[in-house]
């Protein structure tokens, strides 16, 4: 049985008032277990759409996506998602949000373990002083960190993250990038990570996927041959700068094309 994520000939069309819209066309990608794949590309090129197919929220019109040989037919706890719009539960406090998954029957966790795990991840995202706050009292970046902690807490095999660090300031973003790599050192996971930051994608990934739009498709897959563990200091090495510039060039080309 084939391990990892296999995306085979995936196409998605949306029905809109003005006709059908081809959001994804013939997307093929094989992701090995433990890989870190970043997806970059101009806004509206279908990144979130692809993630929704992997999460199981959206059925592709053609082709299919499989995890460990099983076709993805719906959402499941083995695939954790950090949503572009955060999607933290506004009627729950910060602690309750992070503990939500752990309290479900699917992740049966002992009570004292729950507190421990929640505290650990709240500290990691730097929200230990806001445990009892409701989401409406938090800034965008803080909400995003709650969403990240909530997804990390249930320790899924696959993490699907849609611009998870987008709302964070540069320092917090850097810290969250390193923390994510630390977590992956401890627990092997497959990550699909959407971002607009080429530097971020280069720093985190084993491979960076550059997408093109109209129709949404994969333009290029660029391997990042920099050994892990990576620290922030790697960002200034010649190797890093070179790969980063290469990806930047492709992304910029796609951006130009989209504007024409």
């Amino acid at each position, binding site marked *: 049985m084939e391990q990892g994520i296999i995306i085979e000939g995936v196409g998605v069309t949306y029905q809109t008032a003005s006709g059908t819209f081809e959001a994804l066309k013939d997307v093929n990608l094989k992701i090995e277990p433990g890989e870190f794949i970043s997806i970059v590309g101009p806004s509206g090129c279908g990144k979130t759409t692809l993630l929704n197919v992997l*999460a199981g*929220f959206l059925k592709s019109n053609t082709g299919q996506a499989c995890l460990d040989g099983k076709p993805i037919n*719906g*959402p*499941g*706890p083995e*695939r*954790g*998602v950090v*949503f572009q*719009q955060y*999607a*933290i*539960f*506004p*009627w*729950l406090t910060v602690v309750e949000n992070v503990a*939500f*998954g752990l309290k*479900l*029957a*699917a*992740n049966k966790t002992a009570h004292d373990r729950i507190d421990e795990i929640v505290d650990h991840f709240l500290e990691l995202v730097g929200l230990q002083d806001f445990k009892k706050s*409701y*989401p*409406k009292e938090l800034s965008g970046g803080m909400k995003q960190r709650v969403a990240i902690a*909530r*997804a990390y807490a*249930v320790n*899924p095999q696959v993490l699907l993250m849609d611009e998870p660090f987008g709302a964070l300031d540069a320092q917090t973003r850097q810290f969250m990038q390193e923390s994510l790599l630390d977590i992956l050192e401890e627990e092997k996971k497959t990550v699909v990570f959407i971002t607009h930051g080429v530097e971020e994608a280069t720093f985190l990934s084993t491979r960076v996927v550059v997408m093109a739009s109209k129709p949404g498709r994969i333009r290029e897959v660029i391997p990042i041959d920099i050994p892990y563990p990576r620290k922030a200091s790697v960002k200034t090495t010649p190797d890093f700068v070179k790969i980063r510039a290469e990806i930047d060039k492709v992304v910029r080309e796609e951006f130009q094309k989209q504007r024409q």
Partner: protein
Amino acid sequence: MESDKEGGLMTDHSSRDAVIQTFKAVKKRQQIEKIGYFIASFVLVLVVWEVGRATHLVNPKLFPSFAAVCRAFVQFLKDGTLLAHMYASFVRVLIGFSLGIVGAVILGFLIGWFRVVRLIVDPLVSFFRALPPIALIPLMIIFFGIGETSKIIVLTYASFFPALVVIYQALIGLEPIYGRAAQTLGANNWEMFRKIILPQLYPHIITACRVSLGVCWATLVAAELIAAQKGIGAMMVEAQNFFQMAPLVLGVLLIGVISLVMDSIVRAIERRATAWQEKRT
């Protein structure tokens, strides 16, 4: 803004406390002002009332003085009839309202959940919600007599449809993203219902209660005016028959005050239930 801790550095906490203190003080002042205006508006009504009588703008023989209404209140309170009437009215509202709400919640969920139920019930709902409950009273009296049954059916009907519409609208307006998030965390159907749908619906259910209670109360008085031995409406009919103006006006005032009190109780519950929502004033 002042810190309550004297000397020493202003820590994050003490400055935050200070902000909270000022905030509370402002809130309190606003509350006192509100009570002041509340009293002022009542005084205004009283003045208009008495001046109207004194200047014969309204016929003083037909319209009792405030003191007379108060006397009627005390007298009815003493001989126990007032409490008996109010009790009868409350019991009817409570039973009708509860049955209506429970029914509306259940049917609301069925409609939201099953497409078939929605398709069948939708046109019926549109028709019945346009039909005022009072229109049913004569029919119900023929079917069930002038006893409690007909009144409770009318009241159940009165509270059922407004609540159903509110709950149904809320259910189809739910944000799908929270359900999706819960699914990726592993929630099963029961957990989805209890931990995602109910908490989002809870504020709407309370709104439904508020709307229904208002409609129920208005309908109750109409039902009692037509046929009842006990109840505030019945008390007014009796007073009308004997041309006792003070108890009649007392009835009007009581109905207003009771609806007001009930509405503020439900609103207080509503405020607590929706504390987490962003859009509140």
